[in-house]
């Protein structure tokens, strides 16, 4: 009992400053950095359009730009719990699947920028949920050896995309007086 209490107190003594440092300084700075990178992705994409390297009729461009905008808006609070918590309807999943197909069939520049944006959102989600990250990292690396797990991860990515881009914003209920 005495040893347990001693270990707990030592853990608190050492761990709490690290915890506060992470949540109050490192995470906000990291998110700001990721946002700047997202702005860069979006600006590069716009420059491609302005420079004429992407056609104005490209269907994937507005999707990726919209994804970047929504990601910038939601980066501060997006986390891995959202992916498991939110239940999507069939229509949203199908729309996400269609949009992802359009993006992955687009020109390599757009695909490259989209993958970069997805990685930035994944980074923000990981920064906002260190608990899940610490618990899941060994399983994720082990699971990547199996194709079924890869398919499941693609499904999760699809779901995250749908949550971020397609799912309609919840309308606040009117306050009854």
């Amino acid at each position, binding site marked *: *009992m*005495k040893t*347990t*209490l*001693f270990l*707990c*107190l*030592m*853990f*608190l*003594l*050492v*761990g709490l*400053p*690290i*915890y506060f*440092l992470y949540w109050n*300084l*490192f995470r906000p*700075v990291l998110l*700001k*950095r990721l946002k*700047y990178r997202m*702005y*860069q992705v979006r*600006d590069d994409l*716009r*420059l491609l359009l*302005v*420079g004429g390297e992407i056609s104005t009729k490209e269907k994937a461009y507005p999707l990726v730009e919209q994804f970047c905008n929504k990601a910038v808006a939601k980066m501060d609070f997006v*986390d*891995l*719990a959202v992916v*498991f*918590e939110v239940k999507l309807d069939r229509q949203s999943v199908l729309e996400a699947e269609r949009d992802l197909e359009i993006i992955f069939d687009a020109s390599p520049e757009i695909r490259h920028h989209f993958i970069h944006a997805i990685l930035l959102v994944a980074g923000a989600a990981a920064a*906002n*949920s*260190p*608990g*899940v990250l*610490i*618990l899941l990292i060994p399983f994720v690396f082990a699971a990547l050896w199996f194709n079924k797990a890869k398919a499941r991860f693609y499904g999760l990515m699809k779901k995250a995309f749908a949550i971020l881009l397609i799912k309609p914003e919840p309308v606040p209920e009117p306050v009854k007086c």
Partner: protein
Amino acid sequence: MIDPDPRAIVRAWNRLILAGEKVALKSLATGNFAWFGIFAIAAVCAYRLSPSDLKEVMLKVLVTYGWTGYVVAAVTIFVSIKILKWRENFYHQEIARIAEVRNAVVQNKLELPLQSSVQTIVRK
């Protein structure tokens, strides 16, 4: 006495379960469940220990191993300074990048009319 509506009770329970589920998922995501667990274990241990044992443990933590606090504080300050310098650095990079993008946009926008005006002049 007013009988409560059984459907309202079920709805209230469902909302409570949903809220609990959300709190659990968030605490799992943020990792705060670990701190809650440690606090709970420490509280139970402190409650069950005798005052003399508790005093012994507290003295051991705060006096014998109290110096670790200085080490942790020094590391924290060092890391904080590094993070703030990093933030300053990438902020300046971002400002430079925005200026470049602005230039590129202005050039792209100006190039098209200039080319067209040159072409117009040649055509004339």
